[in-house]
């Protein structure tokens, strides 16, 4: 057991626990209303939104998995940088429109918007279910971030004792999310992000000094890992794979329920636009963090017998925690680990809230109990947020980790299938609700099929056009199928029986 690390971590955890519960009284609102509990009353300004959305999008899993990918596979892992560059033009252009229409009509979820735009409960159900199913494994993966850190602290034990720290962290998370709603992660995100910035900036300055400069670090990495292998023969090879991974991930990101929850909690569209310019600070941080993967290679942490147990248990995910332990005194490693563990709680809280909002609004109220009152609605959402988290905890403790990783990979392919009904629908009502539903089915089926042919181990599927192979992100290819089907069938359906009269939104609602 590394005691200094543990003590610093526990102290910081105690601090954010107190904050999580006091958050209920921050910018006080009537927490029996769903938009107060589940969207923080739509009151967050530029500054808080920056911390909240930053803490929401750049999750603990990202902070562990991206450097681990760079550590293990090299240059391809850097796709996280173009990916997180491309999300912001999309955020700037598209999402103030979504915010405006949701604010005008009191929509809490994207499925609410789809319901209002198309008057089609089944299409809204498809969007809601996709969101819930794509988010569940994502929550589970946040727990993996906590597990790695607990392992790095040298907290051992077997059976239930082994999982006890994780269970305690999750009970705390569940309790303050239940009482404070979205205000809790918003407040905690401030602390967590400051810790993360301190840890990463210190690492990218101190570690290169200890290792003799960036030149020496990159010289220690095999040259083949430093750039993408140029394609040979009639294929676009890694180039199309890298580009489509970045583009597809970027298009999918803001369709995830936790992203839209973060965006809809903003005070106005200007807050979102300003954040599209300010949030790239996190992308830069993520890029630096990815380089820590190479620093771990150069520092030779894998050969250090002290870390053998950690690598055996967690694989490349252990590279960055090991680097911090090797390069810094215990108390500073404690700060970094606390940042990662708390960094898991923020998105996990927002994800469970977002899932709860979807279930309550678009399944419970739509299909099970349409007459429920506003406070009943909120009670249901709070209950669901607990169930969702218990499910994630159960998943991590009792099922192999590979299931969560594979499901999260599928989740990306699935969530992008809601793009036509959400993002394209913000601009045009040409599309027909039923056509969109059939397009969604085609996208889901083809995307899942592509992943199945890869045995759910990867998401790069090669398509062949004019004698050239284009290996690319299956999410993007299946989205193309979805869009083509949606538009083609809309032409037919609009001619036979248009559903445009069901649109309850007006053009001026979007500005």
């Amino acid at each position, binding site marked *: 057991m590394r005691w200094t690390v543990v003590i610093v971590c526990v102290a910081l955890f105690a601090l954010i626990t107190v904050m999580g519960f006091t958050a209920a009284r921050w910018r006080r609102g009537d927490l029996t209303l769903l938009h107060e509990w589940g969207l923080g009353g739509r009151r967050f300004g530029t500054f808080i939104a920056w911390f909240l959305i930053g803490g929401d999008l750049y999750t603990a899993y990202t902070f562990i998995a991206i450097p681990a990918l760079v550590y293990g596979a090299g240059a391809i892992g850097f796709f996280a*940088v173009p990916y*997180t560059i491309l999300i912001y*033009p999309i955020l700037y252009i598209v999402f103030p429109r979504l915010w405006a229409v949701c604010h005008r009509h009191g929509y809490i979820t994207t499925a609410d918007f789809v319901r209002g735009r198309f008057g089609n409960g089944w299409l809204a159900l498809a969007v809601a279910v996709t969101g819930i199913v794509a988010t569940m494994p994502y929550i589970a993966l946040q727990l993996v971030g906590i597990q790695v850190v607990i392992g790095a602290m040298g907290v051992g034990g077997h059976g239930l004792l082994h999982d006890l720290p994780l269970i305690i962290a999750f009970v705390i998370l569940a309790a303050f999310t239940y009482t404070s709603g979205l205000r809790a992660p918003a407040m905690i995100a401030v602390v967590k992000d400051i810790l993360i910035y301190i840890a990463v900036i210190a690492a990218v300055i101190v570690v290169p000094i200890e290792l003799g400069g960036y030149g020496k670090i990159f010289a220690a990495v095999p*040259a083949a890992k430093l*750039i993408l292998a140029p394609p040979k023969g009639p294929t676009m090879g890694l180039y*199309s794979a890298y580009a489509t991974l970045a583009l597809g991930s970027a298009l999918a990101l803001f369709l995830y329920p936790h992203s839209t929850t973060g965006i809809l909690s903003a005070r106005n569209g200007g807050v979102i636009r300003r954040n599209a310019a300010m949030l790239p600070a996190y992308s*830069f941080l993520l*890029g630096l963090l990815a380089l820590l993967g190479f620093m771990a290679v150069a520092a030779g942490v894998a050969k250090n017998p002290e870390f053998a147990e950690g690598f055996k248990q967690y694989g490349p995910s252990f590279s960055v925690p090991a680097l911090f332990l090797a390069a810094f005194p215990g108390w500073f490693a404690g700060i970094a680990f606390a940042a990662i563990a708390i960094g898991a709680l923020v998105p996990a809280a927002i994800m469970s809230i977002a899932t709860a909002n979807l279930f309550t609004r678009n399944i419970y109220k739509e299909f099970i109990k349409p007459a429920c009152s506003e406070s009943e609605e909120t009670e249901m959402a709070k209950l669901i947020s607990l169930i969702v988290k218990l499910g994630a905890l159960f998943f991590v403790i009792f099922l192999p980790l590979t299931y969560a990783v594979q499901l999260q990979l599928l989740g990306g392919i699935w969530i992008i299938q809601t793009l036509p009904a959400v993002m394209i629908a913000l601009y045009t009502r040409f599309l027909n609700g039923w056509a969109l539903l059939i397009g969604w089915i085609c996208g889901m089926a083809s995307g899942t099929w592509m992943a199945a042919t890869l045995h759910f181990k990867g998401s790069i599927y090669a398509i062949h056009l004019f004698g050239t192979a284009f290996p690319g992100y299956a999410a993007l290819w299946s989205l193309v199928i979805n869009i083509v089907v949606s538009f083609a069938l809309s032409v037919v359906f609009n001619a036979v029986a248009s559903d445009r009269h069901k649109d309850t939104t007006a053009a001026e609602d979007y*500005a």
Partner: protein
Amino acid sequence: MTMPASPPGRRSRTSFLRLLLLLPFVAMLWVSSYNSLTPTLGGIPFYYWYQLLWVVIAAVLTVVVYRFER
């Protein structure tokens, strides 16, 4: 629940400058343009510092568009 329309004058104007926001897409999706070890910058291969530089460029472009539209 219907909210009142936002007050006139607060509504942002959209502009042709938004086309600038296409530049990050062109630069980042054109992978062969930056898949190179050289020139290095402070020991960091081109591939890495160039993509990090685009984080900054894209953010600046967004600021430019925002300031104009406000």
